[in-house]
């Protein structure tokens, strides 16, 4: 029992109990799911909110009697957002803790170093928000919870292309600015691909380092090229810097947006308020009627009730439902297979469709979603930084893909600051 005790101590330090003590008492050995998560360091904001989603899932499952009649126990370690920690942590989970299943940490940079370890043990592996991780490994027991699909370059910006097509006057030129990291560079690559295909002239195309403090000179250089469409691929701190500098420069263009990470996050929405108006940004979820999947409202209700106390994103409109869905996929496959057989679980995941809080999911041979779902949403009618409106439809209107469309494009971006 020393292992259990040690984990209890760890959990105590993390100030949260995963499983109510009463629930743990009723059945045999707990069903243990292990993973590492970024609870400190640069990825911690998303890592910690994913962990809360996982805890909510574990409580929901345990309330229904657990998995295979066993109570679920989450065994997680903090990888400190440091990829160098990941291989050791996964060997620990598999060899020392001997967990029944492993799931992934958050984001490609952390998932990739776990892959060789997981592949060596032939574990079935459901990942969270990796983009194209399996393109290199081609592991047949890898399943990805992310909207990207098999071919990121060929599909990512297609929704944005659809939105460009909605402009009243056809666009002729585009500018591209992307931060130096894997996700943003892939997004920019996809945009370039579509721009060339559709004959859009690329008038500005550069990258910037994540340590950039002032975006004014860069945006002015973009402004000088007078693009019809402005495409950014950015991360949270710089998304804010870019959007504020744009508002200061009274930067206006028929269409502004792209693969910006940041506008999906509650604290960013609170800070930027009306600056976000008419921005067309990549997203994974919006509380629009077209995305009212069974279970999502209940999940978000539970999540929002606890978010403030856990110091995580207050809304849970971004990757949190996907973290919940990640565990739902594990749960449903185990329920169908009836035992912990990694090969059978992988076969089941390849064959079946999963009903999750982020909608029905089907996986391709590479483990990505058969049907990519890169949403492009537009922020509309925002007057202040109050977050209540983001819980209701109509604020983050979905423009593409057509299947989820819930409103019409407003143009231009940034009239009069």
């Amino acid at each position, binding site marked *: 029992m020393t292992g259990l005790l040690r984990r209890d101590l760890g959990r105590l330090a993390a100030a949260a109990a995963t499983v109510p003590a009463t629930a743990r008492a009723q059945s045999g050995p707990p069903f243990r799911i292990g993973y590492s998560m970024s609870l400190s*360091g640069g990825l911690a904001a998303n890592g910690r909110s994913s962990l809360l989603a996982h805890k909510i899932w574990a409580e929901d499952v345990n309330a229904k009697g657990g998995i295979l009649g066993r109570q679920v126990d989450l065994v997680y370690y903090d990888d400190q957002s440091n990829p160098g920690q990941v291989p050791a942590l996964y060997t620990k989970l598999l060899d020392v803790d001997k967990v029944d299943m492993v799931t992934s940490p958050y984001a490609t940079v952390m998932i990739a170093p776990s892959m060789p370890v997981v592949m060596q043990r032939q574990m079935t592996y459901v990942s969270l928000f990796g983009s194209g991780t399996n393109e290199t490994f081609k592991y047949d027991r890898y399943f990805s919870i992310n909207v990207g699909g098999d071919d990121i370059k060929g599909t990512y910006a297609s929704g944005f292309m659809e939105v460009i097509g909605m402009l009243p006057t056809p666009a002729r030129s585009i500018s591209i600015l992307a931060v*130096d990291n894997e996700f943003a560079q892939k997004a920019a690559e996809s945009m370039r691909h579509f721009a060339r295909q559709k004959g859009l002239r690329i008038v500005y195309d550069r*990258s910037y*380092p994540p340590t950039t403090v002032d975006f*004014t000179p860069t945006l002015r250089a973009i402004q000088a090229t007078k693009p019809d469409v402005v495409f950014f691929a950015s991360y*949270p701190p710089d998304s804010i810097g870019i959007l504020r500098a744009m508002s200061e420069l009274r930067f206006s263009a028929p269409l502004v947006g792209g693969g910006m990470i940041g506008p999906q996050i509650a604290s960013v929405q609170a800070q930027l308020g009306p600056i976000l108006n008419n921005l067309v940004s990549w997203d994974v979820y919006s509380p629009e009627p077209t995305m009212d999947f069974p279970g999502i409202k209940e999940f978000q209700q539970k999540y929002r009730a606890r978010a403030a106390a856990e110091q995580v994103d207050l809304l849970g409109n971004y990757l949190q439902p996907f973290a919940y869905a990640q565990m739902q996929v594990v749960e449903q496959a185990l329920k169908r297979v009836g035992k912990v057989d990694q090969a059978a679980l992988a076969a089941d995941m390849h064959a079946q469709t999963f009903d999750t809080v982020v909608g029905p999911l089907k996986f391709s041979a590479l483990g990505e979603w058969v049907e990519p779902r890169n949403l492009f949403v537009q922020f509309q009618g925002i007057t202040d930084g109050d977050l209540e409106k983001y819980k209701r439809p109509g604020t983050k209107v979905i423009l593409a893909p057509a299947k989820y469309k819930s409103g019409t494009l407003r143009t231009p971006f940034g009239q009069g600051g």
Partner: protein
Amino acid sequence: MEFDLSLLLNGIVSGLLLGGLYAVAASGLAVSFGMLDIVNIAHPALMVAAAFLVVAVGGAIGLDPLLCAVLLSPVFYLIGVGIYTFYNRFFERRGDEALQGLAFFFGVMFIIEVGLVMAFGPEQRFLDPSYAFTTWRIGEIDLPLRMLVPALFGLLAIGLLYLFLHRSFIGLAIAAVAQDAEALRLLAIDPVKIKRLAFGVSAMLACIAGGALIVVQPVEPSSGQIFIGRVFAICIMGGMASLSGAIAAAFLFGVVENVTATFFGPSWAPAVAFGWLLLVLAFRPQGLFGRAA
């Protein structure tokens, strides 16, 4: 990118505004590192800690971040005095400042940064005063108040520091410590007392810089790391013990960074700025604005 005069002018102006932020961030270090010879690499971390406190206090009572930083600066003076007392007791007196003292500040930096994560969570924090969303335009040139107000505020603080160092008795004593601590002893002034005071002033400036920083951009616990290299680079280029040199270097650094970003794209801006520093170190170690030793 074709050449464009308005782009160049705006690049220079925005670089000067950015330089104002760098100047206030570097001025505290110019006192501790430049004059007292204390390599306080925790200075940017102190600045970020101040920014977090400004958010917490200013957000709670609805006060302007810059005013709030001024109100909080006595607290940082005391923190600075505390840090220096400890540093003097355990490192300076033992003659261990070179290696162990440096490691001490490294540890302090780490403790502050992780302490902020534990106290405030890893999320970004912000506190925008109402003027942060206004921009003045003079002809072709933009002056966003988000950058202009902190830059002017920082320059005001630096101006007061300059007067303090050059006009007041204590200020002159600080300058004397930088030159020759033993000579002060002959005047019956305790150099340790003077250094303690000066280090407190340097921490106060970190607090002021934190107030300026939060107006310019949101902060997260690790924000200080972006500034470490930059503020030290500025102090060295400015020629160490010279405050005016550091200010000039700060503006130059901002302009080089922003003009590079305008014409060659932002990805090369840090490499150009730091590569330049390496060259300065190699060929003119007394700094661009320092006198040869």
